């Protein structure tokens, strides 16, 4: 809200330097970060106002705040007029048909106005508000609005058929050419001002072009009314119009002030040669009683943490326009002035007291605090998981939850995306159904900026419709790995990103959370190259997918492959019970380590071999792993050569060679029976 210092001074004396004024306004909640000095010595402040304080949308309201702040009283306001002997109601017939949307409607007629340029003083005010002066009548209407916050509308009386002024809902199919030159299609939920025949203004929003003030206007009907805020808001949204008038009406106009605003406008028009009709038309069928609140001194102290003197409380509220009557011990009955639409409860009054008492005078106290619930454990698990990935060289990324619908389709998650009704961009019109898209965008960005090694992970929500009416947000873990694993070294070149490095990182990280080992099965997925993907299962439940991202998809995202990625439904996993931690003594007896090297048919998967060995429940077998693999041309056709290392131990006693032999034979027998493996020469056993 633009506020002119000279204009303010018409309402209250201000005797302090500008910077002090701004500082003190800040401390009562009126922030001004920009101001301009005009050539004729005025200062125009740009003051931030709040949605609940329509009373500060005019100079009078700001002056009232300053008056309460400084103690200088508001000046008396007078609105001299030249009066016609004819009652207003004899010149124009005013009717309010929909009083629910128009609780008060007042008006005057001013005849014989000489339209012309505004006088110097008025022009300066209009210019200070950042507007161009138009003519004295239009400028007067704006001046009343900016002076008091009460919007005024002026009609050319000769263009109002009847003349009758009817406040009613628009009829279906009615339209109006408005002052901004547009055709507004009106609906039955919109309030209009109509004459005998048709609408002449959209009530509280914008006037009609035809009934507007022109150079030829001589007689003016002044409207000063109050309209229902919600209705104004709906109408201006439907018409896509924002005006100074509706901005104020939708925040709540001062129902008590409408007559004075009409008088003020009439007075201005009389100074342009007009003569005002006798007696205000004032249709106010249900006069509102002032809200009465109880304010307790003790409650004020309890909420603010400081005892504000009673005298200060009374003085402040009175200066702000409240009427204050002492009531029961330590409390007051407070009548709220009609311009303070924001004050409804005791807490609102306490805020007023705090504002003027000064937030800086309220002490800062750190309370001693009792013990409450500990942190939710999911956060600890996520923290530990992240630590593991940092350790393995993965950088954390955070991407926006939005996705480009076209690109997301390519990723083929099969989830029904949540679409935004009013996206800020067509490229961010849905919520992501996968983390992969974001990770690929990150890959491209880093590759384009000279970073080849991109090993990243994200933990965040993905969104979709589970069915017609139920949406889901799923906490998801995504990893993507591309480029060299590590920095170039003079001593040895780094390996390149690969499937098993990614798989190992995932397994180790989840292992650190004490989850049981993951199981995999071959899978096909639109995001991944054929034959390159595995579905990830946890205890039989599918919780994710990993593989080599299709080169074509990398290309869609402008990134260069090969890139490997995994996505895990982390939320699903975190709901499972992780294993409990238990201490195990380190073995005191040595283990026997034996390797087996054998040929096995290429289509036998390691996972099959592993589960066969596990199922065999081999005595003394402590652990085993694969330590070498060769699939080159020197093998028998269709065979892979595997070397596995088995660790045998008897925790109670040193294991004898014969005992280890027996266990080893059992493994061999199992593998031969299940997979027809063939020991390599010198392959052990």
């Amino acid at each position, binding site marked *: 809200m633009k506020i002119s210092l000279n204009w303010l001074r018409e309402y209250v004396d201000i005797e302090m330097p500008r910077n002090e004024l701004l500082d003190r306004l800040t401390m009562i909640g009126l922030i001004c970060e920009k101001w301009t000095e005009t050539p004729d010595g005025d200062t125009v402040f740009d003051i931030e106002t709040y949605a609940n304080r329509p009373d500060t949308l005019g100079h009078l309201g700001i002056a009232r705040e300053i008056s309460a702040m400084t103690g200088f009283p508001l000046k008396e306001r007078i609105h001299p007029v030249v009066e016609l002997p004819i009652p207003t109601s004899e010149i124009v017939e005013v009717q309010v048909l929909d009083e629910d949307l128009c609780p008060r409607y007042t008006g005057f007629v001013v005849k014989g106005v000489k339209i012309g340029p505004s006088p110097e003083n008025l022009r300066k005010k209009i210019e200070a508000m950042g507007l161009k002066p138009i003519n004295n009548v239009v400028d007067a209407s704006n001046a009343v609005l900016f002076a008091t916050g009460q919007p005024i509308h002026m009609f050319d009386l000769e263009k109002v058929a009847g003349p009758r002024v009817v406040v009613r809902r628009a009829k279906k199919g009615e339209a109006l050419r408005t002052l901004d030159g547009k055709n507004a299609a009106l609906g039955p939920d919109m309030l209009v001002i109509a004459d005998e025949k048709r609408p002449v203004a959209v009530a509280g929003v914008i006037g009609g072009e035809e009934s507007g003030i022109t150079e030829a206007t001589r007689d003016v009907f002044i409207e000063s009314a109050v309209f229902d805020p919600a209705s104004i808001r709906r109408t201006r949204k439907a018409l896509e119009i924002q005006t100074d008038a509706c901005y104020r009406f939708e925040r709540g106009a001062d129902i008590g002030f409408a007559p004075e605003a009409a008088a003020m406008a009439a007075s201005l028009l009389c100074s342009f040669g007009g003569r005002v009709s006798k007696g205000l038309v004032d249709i106010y069928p249900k006069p509102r009683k002032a809200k009465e609140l109880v304010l307790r001194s003790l409650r004020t102290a*309890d909420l603010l943490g400081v005892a504000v003197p009673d005298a200060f409380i009374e003085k402040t509220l009175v200066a702000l326009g409240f009427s204050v009557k002492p009531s029961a011990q330590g409390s007051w009955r407070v009548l709220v002035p009609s311009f303070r639409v924001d004050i409804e409860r005791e*807490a609102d009054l306490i805020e007023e007291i705090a504002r003027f008492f000064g937030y800086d005078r309220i002490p800062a106290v750190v309370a001693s605090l009792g013990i409450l619930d500990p942190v939710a454990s999911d956060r600890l698990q996520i923290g530990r998981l992240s630590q593991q990935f940092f350790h393995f060289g993965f950088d954390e*990324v955070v991407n926006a939850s939005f996705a480009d619908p076209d690109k997301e389709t390519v990723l083929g998650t099969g989830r029904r995306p*949540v679409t935004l009704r*009013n*996206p*800020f961009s067509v490229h961010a019109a849905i919520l992501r159904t996968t983390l992969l898209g974001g990770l690929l965008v990150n890959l491209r960005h880093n590759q384009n900026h000279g970073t080849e090694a991109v090993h990243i992970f994200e933990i965040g929500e993905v969104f979709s419709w589970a069915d017609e009416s139920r949406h889901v947000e799923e906490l998801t873990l995504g990893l993507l790995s591309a480029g060299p694993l590590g*920095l170039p070294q003079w001593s040895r070149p780094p390996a390149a990103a690969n499937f098993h490095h990614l798989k190992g990182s995932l397994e180790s990280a989840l292992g650190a959370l004490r989850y049981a080992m993951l199981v995999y099965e071959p899978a096909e997925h639109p995001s991944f190259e054929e034959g390159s993907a595995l579905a990830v299962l946890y205890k039989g439940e599918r919780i994710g997918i990993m593989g080599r991202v299709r080169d074509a998809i990398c290309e869609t995202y402008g990134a260069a492959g090969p890139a490997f990625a995994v996505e895990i439904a982390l939320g699903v996993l975190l709901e499972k019970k992780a294993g409990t931690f238990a201490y195990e003594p380190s073995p005191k007896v040595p283990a026997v380590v034996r390797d087996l090297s054998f040929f096995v048919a290429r289509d036998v998967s390691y996972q099959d071999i592993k589960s066969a060995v596990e199922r065999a429940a081999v005595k003394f077998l402590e652990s085993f792993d694969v330590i070498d693999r060769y699939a080159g041309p020197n093998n028998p056709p269709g065979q892979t050569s595997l070397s596995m290392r088995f660790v045998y131990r008897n925790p109670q006693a040193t294991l004898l060679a014969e005992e280890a032999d027996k266990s080893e034979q059992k493994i061999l027998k199992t593998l031969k029976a299940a997979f027809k493996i063939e020991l390599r020469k010198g392959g052990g056993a």
Partner: protein
Amino acid sequence: MPSPDLEKFRIAIDAHRAKLADACAAVRDAAGLEELRNRYLSRKRGFVTLLFEDLKKFEAADKPAAGQLLNLLKTEIQEKLAALEESLRTPAAGGPGVDLTLPGERLTWGAAHPLRIFQREIESIFQEMGFGIEDGPEIETDYYNFEALNFPPNHPARDDWDTLYINDNLLLRTHTSPVQIRIMEKHKPPIRIIIPGKVYRRETPDPTHAAMFFQVEGLVVDRNVTFAHLKGTLEYFLKRLFGDKLKTRFRPSFFPFTEPSAEVDIECLACGQKDPACRVCGGTGWKEILGSGMVDPQVFKNVNIDPEQYSGWAFGLGVERTAMFAYGIPDIRYFYENDLRFTRQFHLK
């Protein structure tokens, strides 16, 4: 009884084996190694390759034994060459001929995203003060995001929270405040929590605006909680975050869900409140850092907490804005580009 051919073959192989150690010892660099590898294993004229050619001449009965001999030699050579290669790359500490001034190996590790680092820093200050951490859904209903927080339908206060809607009822939460409501519905006071999380606004991205950003909100509800506690706790928090000597300023503001409401400014660290042309604070010397206030009695009523028995305060702060101010980061979009040159800096913090 081995045939004479086989015996000759064994001798030839042993001779090669005997020279192997010397040949390896003579290698000084990668080129020498490559030369040696070719001498033995080149596909056309390597010694071993040629010996495999010789195999064809053996009688069927001798072939397996000869083949085994030759394979053993080949394995041995491969192992020696591999070991040699390794020794050329990782010279033994202090070994002769090693340039000890060569750089150490450059090891890498992953880094947390800066927003998580700031978020955790904020969390830990409040955790030390005994606050719990809570979260809630990012897709919210109009009720939790607005109505329960005392934003009436059709109220212009909603205009300050530019909202991304899914339908008439569902939206992307514009603040983490709905979690306050969800927690107060479930738990009776005392409540002392912070709520970090993503929030959404309908903003076109530019250097100071993002359609998604991180917020940390806090909520305290108990008997005898006052505005003085709000001031004390937030002042302490900001000093922990920005330094002991930090100047703070509480000034009146408006939020539908708090009454009284306060905006908290901290002194401009960029200019030390001295530069009237400072671009960070606009010359005011102050930088707005968080919003706060006493919980509005209507909010308490909406969750069936008696505002006569209990009072509370709440605050909210933007993580990006705070980090941008603390480190002079000029553009909020940097946080979401995930340029590793940017994100990796902050683990040094």
